[in-house]
């Protein structure tokens, strides 16, 4: 498969490359907006991949005109699919940006770690539970508190 470096293969590699770049961008970036943009790249890569699925080297665009049909046409189905995929992608990205604006108004920051920290604090506040132990404060206080009186009896200090 590697031997025949057909243009088709190059396009496939670029599609997968785009997806990889997009995903890496999402993972590595620490700013929320940059993550959304990386997501856009990944979606473009996926759409390219979808288009390539129906691609034939020497065919022409699948447009029916009054003239006689051309010899070979590219498979129109994936192109229809790509249309809907792009529409969905745009829809989600628009929603993402609007949520980003809301976060900016609420938390005045778009840094991922800080936003997550703020969210945790707010959840703990609304639900009224004590903040759970983070990595800094280990489990329970040190040294261990003595057993409460009624526990001692229950312990029964069996051999």
């Amino acid at each position: 498969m590697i031997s025949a470096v057909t243009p088709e293969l190059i396009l496939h590699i670029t599609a997968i490359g785009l997806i990889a770049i997009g995903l890496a961008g999402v993972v590595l970036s620490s700013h929320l907006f940059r993550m959304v943009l990386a997501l856009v790249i990944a979606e473009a890569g996926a759409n390219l991949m979808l288009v390539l699925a129906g691609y034939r080297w020497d065919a022409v665009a699948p447009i029916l005109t009054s003239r006689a049909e051309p010899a070979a046409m590219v498979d129109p189905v994936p192109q229809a699919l790509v249309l809907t995929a792009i529409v969905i992608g745009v829809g989600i990205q628009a929603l993402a940006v609007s949520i980003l604006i809301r976060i900016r108004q609420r938390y005045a920051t778009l840094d991922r770690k800080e936003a997550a920290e703020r969210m945790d604090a707010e959840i703990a506040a609304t639900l009224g539970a004590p903040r759970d132990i983070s990595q800094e404060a280990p489990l329970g206080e040190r040294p261990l508190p003595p057993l409460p009186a009624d526990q001692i009896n229950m312990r029964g200090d069996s051999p």
Partner: protein
Amino acid sequence: MSTNLVLIIALPLLGAFLLPVLMRSSMAIALWSGPAILIYGCWIIADLWLSGFAQPLSVAIGGFAPPLGINLYVDSLALLFAFAVQLLGLVFWPFTLDQESARRQSLMLLLVAASTGLALSGDLFNLYVFYELAAVATFGLASASGSGAAYVATLRYLILSGIGSVLTLFGIALIYSQTGTLNLAHLAQLAPEQLHNSLGLTAFLAILIGIGVKAELFPVNTWVPEIYATASTRLSAFLAGLLSKLALLIILRLLLLIFHQPEAAQVILILGILGVISGELAAWRAREMKRMLAFSSIGQLGMIFIAMALPDGKGMLAVLALSLHHLIIKSGLFMLAEDWGGALERLRGSAKASPLGAVLFVLFSLSLVGMPPLPGFWAKFVLITELAAQVEPLYLLGLAVFLLATVVEASYLFRVAATLYGSPAQDTLSEEIPKTKGLSLLTASLFGAGVIAVALLIAPVGDGLQAIAAQALDVDLYITTVSPAVSGGSQ
């Protein structure tokens, strides 16, 4: 009669977009139109079910024949889930009247339409579209509460779901390049030759992880605790109870119809086991009721994944029983969590304030843990006997993890029960103790009655489930119902 089946998707869609317009003209009609549509949907399905529903049927939308056009494949399993969607949509309808209610109700209708589509659709790309539609509706509803935490949680969920959809698209592209068709029945015919190779498997795994985001599969369910903690309990009940099951249904269809390789089952098994371990242990430490229920639903879904991983469809009945049981119990628990949502410490002594709520909580926990007469026990029994029949050590590991998880589950659920029945701390005043009341208590007791009803007539319910499972397993039945319409499509 089969044509108006499409209505149960079309009408909510139509309603979703018309509602804001109606809201402006007259509030009364707008408020009741949503539930009316859902009741009509339930009526259609019930009417179809009662008029003797023996053979599954395939509805070609817009008259186009399946290989090109999109068809709805309706067998008893799909119908069951579709009915569940309509019913739960009605039960969890956001009746709260605030300025946001128009937006919430239309999004809810959108969510119901997308879920019904997920249940019935017989075409892979169509499933993808409905999946994304449901995702968008969930984002809208989740961030409806307007708090900063809700927005951050929704954004993180959006990014995760975005990556999921990228992977799903990648999988669909691979499948299309291999077979040239996206119709499930057609794929089922072509699968043995073209898709049973490493490329086919990659496609399946990509789709598995993509859709796994919503089905709370192990590595991709980090959004679950945040969304359930910040979103309204009605939405989280709908998500945990139903939407995750529908995503699971898609993976199940793919596994049964197209991908029979053992590696696929093993991946699901491993991810299921990890899901159970992480879900149950995280729930053991949870401080709040909502977060505990979130982790517990991850654990339960992990168990359903283990059931799904059983080779050649032996786990089908277990999957069906576990998911329906989890649906009823989790919805009931979330309804209780509406008033008891906060920290578990605050709940101390609230059994005296609301005895019915406490009894319901104990009933749900007992069934979740599997006390014999309740349906939970029978679901676990079916899974246990199937798991024990396997020989490979991985399945026995699954069995051991499943049993240990139940012990952990019992201890944290009954720790909450103990605090409920414990004596309130001295300084809390009597009215500070949260009480379950009003609509949520009513719905929770409805689910409680459902559990007891199923427990009483367990024999007929068991046989019904067995019939549904057998029908769903039957691949060539799927192909024959769709294929007469295929009429010699490109083989």
